[in-house]
Structures are given as C-alpha cells and as structure tokens.
C-alpha cells in the first residue's frame, strides 16, 4: 500500500539502556537501516531488535501490545516528546514517514519516581492501578443493577463523561510533566464518574481517596504547564484537572462539616 510514496530511511537511534531498576543506565547508539516509511515506530524497533539479536546482543525492551493505540501499553520519549512528535497519537500509531533520512532519534523511558524502570524503555506503571483501586469505580455488585434506561442522562453529560473515560492509562501525562504529576489521569477518572448519576453516591469519598493514593504514590503537583494534555494520545482536556481540584475542595469542606456534626452529636 501507499506504493507511490513509500521510501526507505536510514536512521540512528540513541536508546537508553538500563538492565534493572537499580542499575546504572546509559545511552547506546544503534543504526536502523532500510526502514520503510510505511512502518510504524514499533515495527522499526522490531527490525532493529532482530539485528541486535542476530549480532548476539540483548534486544531493546519496551512495552507494547495492541499496536492500534488503545491498550495504553506502549509509550516512551522520542526526542523529549512523550509518544513522539505527533499529537493525539501513541507510539504504536506513529509511522516512520514523519521522520527524515539520516535523523538521529533519542529514546528515553518515561521518567517518574512512581514509574520505576524495569528495563530499558519499559517502566512499572502499577501506581496508576492503585490509584484506581482506591476509588475509581461505582460500588455496584453484579446483579444489583436496575434497568439501563431507568436513569436518563443528559447527552451533554454523557458525552463529556465519555471523553474523560477515553483515558487509556498509558502514563504519558505523568511522563511529560516536569513534576511527574498524575493529575490528568486522576482528573479524568474522577471527572468520568462525577459527571454521571451513577457516580454521585461515592462522589466525595472517591475524590478524597484517589487524591490520597495519588499523593502516597509520590506523584508531583500540577504546575498547569499543559504538557500532559499536549502529550495525551486521547486528548484528555486540561480542565479535567480543574474539576479534580473543585471536587477535592468541595469534598474536603463537606467532610469537615460532616465530621464536625458527628463530633458534636
């Protein structure tokens, strides 16, 4: 396909190699020769790895799975940009036609204290799972549900909730943030459920718990630089962070008032 436009590139990769979380890492350069501009970035890495293996070396380790931009597995920094130069794109959907012959490309793993490096470009993002398990759900047991149409939801709210829910948990927001803040991730989760009637019952506990867990994991604070949203492959809006702040303040005040009342009683 794209027969008329496919070109062949020769590139140099400067890749961060690190054998384990505690080991010293360093950059190593690899040639990437004869890469078709139709190949995806990860397919280019596959080809480089095949050469490394053939030469008796240790292939570059990186996370990847669906390769269609929805599972959130892949992701690393390409020339200082999370998921590479294109907006609204994951690494697996970034194609080599966006690079030029002779380019030298620097690959670095996501950097955040809460995302320890496992090997090379692969990091451990389970901290995000723990933020979800602290409250990112509606506590409804299987079988308890009422009819799906019994609570109408304004289309505008449903659409906005959907947009927040499109987060794929890739961690690019944390990685691109100079503070390694997880506010966009947490904000998206909180927004998704705060906008739906189903999420109202636990609305306050949810935000308090998720923020507490987020802090416990050691993520930084939001400096509102917008790097997260610019890097987000799903274009999660920066204002979800404002909603997180709003929800958090409201919940804190309400909890304080309730605690006071209970204390008085």
């Amino acid at each position, binding site marked *: *396909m*794209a027969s*008329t*436009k*496919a070109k062949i590139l020769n590139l140099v990769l400067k890749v961060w190699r690190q054998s*384990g979380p505690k080991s010293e890492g360093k950059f190593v350069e690899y040639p990437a020769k004869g*890469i*078709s*501009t139709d*190949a*995806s970035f990860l*397919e280019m890495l*596959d080809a480089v790895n*095949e050469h*490394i*293996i*053939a030469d008796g070396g240790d*292939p570059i*380790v990186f996370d990847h*799975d*669906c390769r*269609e931009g*929805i*599972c*959130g*597995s892949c992701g690393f920094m390409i020339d200082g940009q999370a998921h590479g130069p294109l907006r609204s*794109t994951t690494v697996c959907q970034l*194609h080599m036609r966006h690079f030029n012959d002779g380019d030298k490309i620097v690959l670095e793993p996501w950097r955040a204290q809460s995302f320890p490096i*496992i090997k090379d470009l692969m990091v451990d*993002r*389970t901290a995000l*799972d723990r933020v*979800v398990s*602290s409250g*990112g*759900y*509606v*506590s409804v*047991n*299987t*079988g*308890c*549900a*009422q009819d*799906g*149409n019994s609570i*109408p*939801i*304004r*289309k505008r709210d*449903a659409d906005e*909730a*959907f947009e927040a*829910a*499109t987060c*794929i948990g890739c961690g690019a927001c944390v990685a691109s943030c100079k503070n390694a803040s997880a506010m966009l991730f947490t904000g998206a989760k909180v927004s998704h*459920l705060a906008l*739906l009637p*189903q*999420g109202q019952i636990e609305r306050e506990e949810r935000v308090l718990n998720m923020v507490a867990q987020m802090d416990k994991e050691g993520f930084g604070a939001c400096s509102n630089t917008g790097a997260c949203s610019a890097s987000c492959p799903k274009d999660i809006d920066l204002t979800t962070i404002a909603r997180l702040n709003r929800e958090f303040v409201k919940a804190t005040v309400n909890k304080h008032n309730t605690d006071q009342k209970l204390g008085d009683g």
Partner: protein
Amino acid sequence: MSTLDGKIPAGNIEEKWTQYKFDMKLVNPANRRKYNVIVVGTGLAGASAAASLGEMGYNVKAICIHESPRRAHSVAAQGGINAAKNYQNDGDSVQRLFYDTVKGGDFRAREANVHRLAEVSVNIIDQCVAQGVPFARDYSGLLANRSFGGAQVSRTFYARGQTGQQLLIGAYSAMMRQVEAKQVELLYRREMLDLVVIDGKARGIICRNLLTGEIESHVADAVILATGGYSNVFYLSTNAMACAVTAAWRAHRRGAFFANPCYTQIHPTCIPVHGDNQSKLTLMSESLRNDGRVWVPKNKGDARLPHQIPEEDRDYYLERIYPSFGNLAPRDVSSRQAKYRVDEGRGVGSTGVAVYLDFRDAIHRLGESAISARYGNLFQMYDKITGDNPYKTPMMIYPAPHYTMGGLWVDYNLMSTIPGLFVAGEANFSDHGANRLGASALMQGLADGYFILPYTIGNYLASMKLDKVASTHEAFKESAQGIQQEVNKLMSIKGNRTVESFHKELGRLTWEYCGMGRNEAGLKKALTEIPKLREEFWNNVKVPGESNYINPELEKACRVADFLEQGELMCEDALHRKESCGGHFREESQTSEGEAQRDDTNFCYVAAWEWQDKNKKQVLHKEELHFDNVKLATRSYK
C-alpha cells in the same frame, strides 16, 4: 472416539437456564471464603468473573499477563455489544437474538448455550450502565442503539468507536474494587504455563513471573481460563501481540479437549500488509462498505495509479458476482472474493495483496462533508496509518484474521473435560458456532463472567468433595520442574533463527493453507510443513538474554512453541471437516455458484480433539448438535 455430553438441562429451551439455576447446588455465603478460585486472564470475561466471584465472597486470584488488567485486548473491540433490550421497539426479543446468533453461526453452535446468552444479554447492559459505562445516548438521555451485520433490528449498544475499552474499564474497575477489598489478589505480569491436575481435577496452575523469571505454583479449587483466542497463529492478525493460545494449549495438553480449531473468522476490511516489517493488522469498521465500492483492475499487472484507471478497466467484482448484495456481501464471502482477485494477480498496491475500496462515487453523490460526517474518524485513522488520504485516493483493504470461534470444549456449565477447569470468553468454543456475528464477542465475554460462571462454579464446588492440596504436592513440583526444563531448553538451543522468523513462517503456512480457503492438498502440505518447522524451532531457535529477568523474546518463544503445535491441530481439524461452514471454507465443498456448502448429514457436530503424546495424532471426539428450535437452513445472499 467418544460422544461428548454437553450436560444440557432438560426442558424447553426458554426454561433450561431458569431450571438450572433452581436445581443447582449453592455454596453457603460463609463457606465461600474457604474456596480459592484462580482466574487466568483479565479481559472482559476474566475481569468480570473475578469481580463477581470476589463480591460473592470467594478467594480469587487473578492472573494478568500485562502490567495492568486494563490492557487486555478486549479494549480493541470497536463496534458494540448486542442485547435483546428492544428499546427501539422494533420487534427484538430474546428469541430473535437467539435465532440470529444460531443462524449467524451457521448452525454449528449449541442451542441451549446461545439461548442462555440471549437471556442474560439484557442484564449485561444494566450492569454496565450501573458501573458508569458511558454508552452513547440520544437527546432524551436514553440509551442509543445501532444496527449491525446479520440482524434486522437495532440492538447494538455502543460507546463511539471504543465500546470494548469502556466495557473493560467497567469490569476492570469492578475487579479493582475487589482488589481493594482484598477479595481478589491481582498477580500481574504472570503467564500461565501449566495446569495442575490432581485426582482428575484442576487444582492449580504454574505461572512464570515475567518480571523475575520465577516459576510459581498457585493452588485452587477451581480454575477459570479467560485467555482469549488464537488468531495470532496466523502471525499477522488484528489481535494484540501478547494474544496467544498458550494457557488454553497447556490445559489442552493436560486433558482439556480443544473444539473446532478450524473455525476462525477473517474480517474483510482491514488495512493491508505494507511489507515484511509488519507486525500486526488493524481493522476498519465494516460500515465502510455501505458507501465504498470494492474493485480491482481488470487487467493483470495494471501499474497505473487508481485515478488513471478508466471505468471500463475496473472490475467491481462484488457488484458483478452478487448483484443484489453487491458491496454488502457477508464477511466470509467478501473476504474470499478479495483473496481470489489477489490470487489471480489482480491485487493492488506495492505488495499486490490488497483491493481498492473506493469512495469516489459516494463523494460525488453525497459530497465530501456527508462522507466525512459518516466516516470521518475512520478516514483519519486510515490516513494516520497509511499516509494516504481516502477522500482523494481509494482506500486499500484486505481481509485479516481477527477472531477464533474455536477453543477449549466446555459443557453447559462452561466446564472443560477436566473437572474444575472452566473456560470463558473467546477461549472457549461455546456460543458462536462456525461464525460470530458482529457485536457478539463482548456480549459473550461478559455473559460468561458476570452471569454464568458465578452460578456454575458454585454448583461445582458445592457438589464436589475437594481434598486439601498444597503447592508442595508432588504434581505441582513435577509440573514446575517440567516448565523450568522447557525454559532452560529454549535458552540453551542458541540456534541461528529468531523466534519472530519462526512465527512469521508459521503464519505464512497457516494463512496460505488454512486461511480464507482450504483444500485437501493444501492442508496436507501444511501438515507436513508445520511439524518440520516445529522440529527446526526446537533445534535452531535463538533466544537471547537471561531467563531470570524480563525477557520478551523468551515469552514469545514459549508462545510460538505452542502455536507450532496448535497450528497443526487447526489444519488437522480443517482437513477432517470436509464441509464448508461459517469461517471454514473447504474449496471442495461449494455450490455450482461458488458458495459455501454445508453438510448437515455428516458434520452437524462439534469436533473436540484430545491431546495424545507429542508427535502423536490427536483423537477426535464428537458432540452431536441438535436443532430443535431453529430449523436447519442454508444462508443465502442472492
């Protein structure tokens, strides 16, 4: 050969499941915490089962191959999920969903299972809405529906183009709630490499911790496999890279029968292969065929650009062969016709393995903005991947494997031939027969996990006397040693070919001989080639790195080793099934017009294969299929 008993409850089809639920044995809530259940796989089926069992009070261990359960390939389902809600008042019912699914499956599914699926479909939607799944809604605030292939009613619920991801987030977060409640222990980056069977019952699994390389033993009273399908046996498919048959295959080698491995579904509208570096294929929604016209040049080797090819030199082959259905011919038919064009040497693109899907006429007729409103996001996706603008130049498409109807054989309880081993979702063979209808995969995965397994597992546990077993049991030790030896063996071969090259070659064989069209000569050829390739693999594979830390090449090697065995069984099954049905097209069995011809007299059964020793032919068992409620009929598109 023996005849298998599906343990289908007696009674009218409408009452079977209700009666089952009444007749089944229950586990007292206080006793549930005494039972350990392992769920392998945390996609839709696995996560929903783990969440539901955790809520009920069982001790659940969930084994996840990824770093997070939210990455399972269920996320990739775009279209939607079917449910017989009849919200659109267009005459839908449980009975109609049941009928459509049996017929769509080309009469190779078990009626009772399909009916139960249709019954619980309505509960799934309720459950997901309650979890906060943001389904599409109309301006009244009520749930929206759309129609999908193989149905005359609008019963598909959707969340834009990412229904799978939204449903998975629902199931995943329900499971994470149980992780927080300590009802579910989540073990991530683990891959199941063996099933431990003690006294004829599944009592645990052996996993490799992908981070540390440690071989771990996990004991349980029941094991659920929800590990997806095996489309990656074709190397190139729309499946994710980690999708593998390994867990199911290891269970198969321990005695679970593998049913209908030759039933694989090839999706007609995928983005074609660009070259040798290609690692996977991407599916584009079938809806594109509503306005796009499929064509190839009339003449072989026509090197002109598409817009330079005049009307008289174009062959709109679907419109030519199926004048009434035209470009909307069913999935299997359009896939096969594309293959014929490419085989004739009339394929397009740099590889010659693609056909055009042209929107020129639709854009002329409706205008670019109307086409953009309908398919804007798909056009954008196509542009992103190929760098071509489909508004200006025709899309290129080609069929690709994307779902496998075959899988481990299960009875009505979703239990395999090994007591205590349950199989859910795409990993089992149960509900789709020889062909799956669109928007049914999500439905089946969640039905199994939320509404079927929680009952049938309780029934099993309550009616079995299970002795206490520890991970120090001889069977666990022996199995763990076996796995360690396999790993050591793979590491020690130090041959000359990469794992990837074996996988690619296997893919070429299976795709060529057991892909869209199958014939005796080809399958026999594959059956001689695959064992040779397997032998070479075990003597010449090169696995770099160490086995005691993360090593994706080693993981891949284990998976490819299993595909090399399973691919052979798939061809074996395809060879034995001399009829054409659903996704399985035997070129010898076609009508004079070239359409699939089913043979209900000889092949109206489920083929379940029993593993024998390595390099020994597997034994075929049959489960006869009875159609008491839907009359056997031929699908027709003329």
